[in-house]
């Protein structure tokens, strides 16, 4: 039996059409886009054509697109770049509690460097608390950064309303659209975004390439200094093959988006219905305001890592928000932010569909998952445990404590 890959939020395979579009730029059309000769011109043309394609998908102008090494760099350039360039206007940044680490850790870094960051909470459904956001945006706020859709629970944020709040105060808006670009509409004007991050490998393009949309008039400080590439915003000889791949992936997504989103939504809904028949299971995140391909469940008394390993042995690639290792004790910050207890968050399973996912795959998965959950429940002492015993254990230092770290 072939493998069933349901981890498209982590990464996707490169589409054969994308690979073909990249191929010429390794050995044949290898020029440096900064060179004056024909080889250089050829590379520069490919670069600019790619820029037009990506800009087109954002409803932007080509000179508003900066190519980067991926989503993480785009987030870093947007937030640090904006913060450093606009420091005189204020030192406050507002973001949400459920951002990707590329945003959260960038904000934490800025906190160590004189900026003040507010992490706005989200409701049980994963939607940003707009009242809290409104209050958090003050005179000193220079930037609001709220992701378009969450990578774990797939919740899509009401960016229109969020940008209204930011605009009312004359504050710039950055959005991490890494999970939405190519999957649902990401028109920068409609979203009201001044900065928007995207990444190639989530949309059947190559890894290590992405882009940042920078609205005309938005000033950034570069993070990588060097030559005058990307209008001085990002030095380094352009990754022409990667960028051509990103552009081709963008073109295909734009062309197939509506049909594919509808198809994945149908499969996803079938998956939800089937899985939620399992006793002691529930869906994390908003039921409808979520990415077409995202499903995120919790199973009571089951730990996520062991479930992922059990599914892997059955040929299913899935993911969990549980991180039980001595490096990172906390289960997913996203699941904690939507109000799950640590124990509930440890039992999470994320399944993210993609172009290759078939109706038959979903039926197979529905046949396998309840059985694997049941197996783990049979091994688990949690189901039969008295509340008193649980309380006693919760007060115990954990084995991790030997490494000098404590649990919350």
């Amino acid at each position, binding site marked *: 039996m072939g493998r069933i890959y349901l981890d498209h939020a982590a990464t996707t395979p490169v589409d054969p059409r994308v690979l073909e579009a990249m191929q010429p730029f390794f050995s044949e059309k290898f020029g440096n886009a900064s060179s004056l000769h024909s080889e250089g011109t050829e590379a520069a043309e490919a670069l600019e054509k790619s820029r037009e394609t990506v800009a087109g998908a954002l409803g932007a102008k080509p000179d508003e697109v900066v190519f980067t090494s991926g989503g993480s760099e785009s987030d870093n350039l947007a937030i640090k770049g904006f913060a450093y360039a606009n420091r005189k206007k204020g030192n406050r940044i507002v973001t949400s509690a459920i951002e990707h680490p590329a945003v959260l850790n960038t904000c934490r870094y800025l906190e160590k460097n004189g900026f003040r960051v507010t992490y706005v909470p989200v409701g049980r459904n994963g939607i940003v608390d707009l009242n809290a956001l409104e209050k958090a945006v003050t005179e000193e706020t220079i930037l609001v950064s709220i992701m378009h859709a969450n990578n774990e629970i797939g919740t899509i944020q009401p960016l229109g309303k969020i940008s209204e709040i930011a605009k009312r105060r004359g504050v710039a808006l950055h959005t991490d659209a890494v999970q939405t670009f190519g999957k649902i509409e990401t028109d920068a004007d409609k979203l009201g975004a001044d900065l928007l991050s995207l990444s190639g490998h989530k949309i059947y393009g190559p890894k290590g390439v992405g882009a940042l949309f920078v609205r005309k008039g938005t000033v950034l400080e570069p993070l990588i200094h060097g030559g005058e590439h990307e209008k001085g915003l990002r030095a380094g000889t352009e990754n022409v093959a990667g960028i051509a791949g990103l552009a081709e992936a963008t073109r295909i997504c734009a062309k197939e988006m509506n049909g594919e989103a509808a198809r994945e939504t149908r499969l996803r809904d079938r998956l939800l219905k089937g899985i939620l028949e399992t006793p002691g299971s529930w869906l994390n995140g908003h039921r409808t305001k979520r990415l077409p391909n995202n499903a995120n469940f919790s199973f009571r008394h089951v*730990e996520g890592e062991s479930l992922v390993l059990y599914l892997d042995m059955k040929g299913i690639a899935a993911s969990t928000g549980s991180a*039980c290792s001595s490096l*990172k004790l906390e289960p997913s910050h996203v699941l904690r932010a939507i109000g799950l207890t640590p124990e509930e968050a440890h039992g999470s399973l994320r399944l993210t569909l993609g172009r290759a996912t078939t109706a038959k795959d979903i039926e197979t998965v529905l046949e396998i998952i309840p059985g694997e959950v049941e197996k783990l429940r049979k*091994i*688990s002492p949690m189901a039969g445990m008295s509340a008193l015993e649980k309380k006693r*254990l919760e007060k115990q230092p954990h084995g991790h404590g*030997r490494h000098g770290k404590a649990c919350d």
Partner: protein
Amino acid sequence: MAVNYTKKVMEHLANPRNVGEIPGADGVGTVGNPVCGDVMSIYIKVGGGRITDIKFKTYGCGAAIATSSIITELAKGKTIEEAVKISVNDVAGELGGLPPVKMHCSNLAADALHAAIKDYQERRK
């Protein structure tokens, strides 16, 4: 985060030995913390100073399940004196090593066994 487990770990995870509870056990040890995502219970039956039967229940990561399974195999048939000496390193060694971030899971298994033995000894007092 991807974790590289040995074949032996995966084998014990796929087919854990001695799963369950022992009604009327002579000693029970439960360690771990649900907040951290791992709890282990070990049940022992003792006869003539030896562990005649042992079972476990574990809620936790792959390594936690595999280490509990292997420790029940290591302890079965051993005298109490021998079983007390089973250490973290014995568990990890038997599994062909554990990734460094997962070493404490063997701690947990050894702790659970030792807690069960302690419970047995206290009940005899």
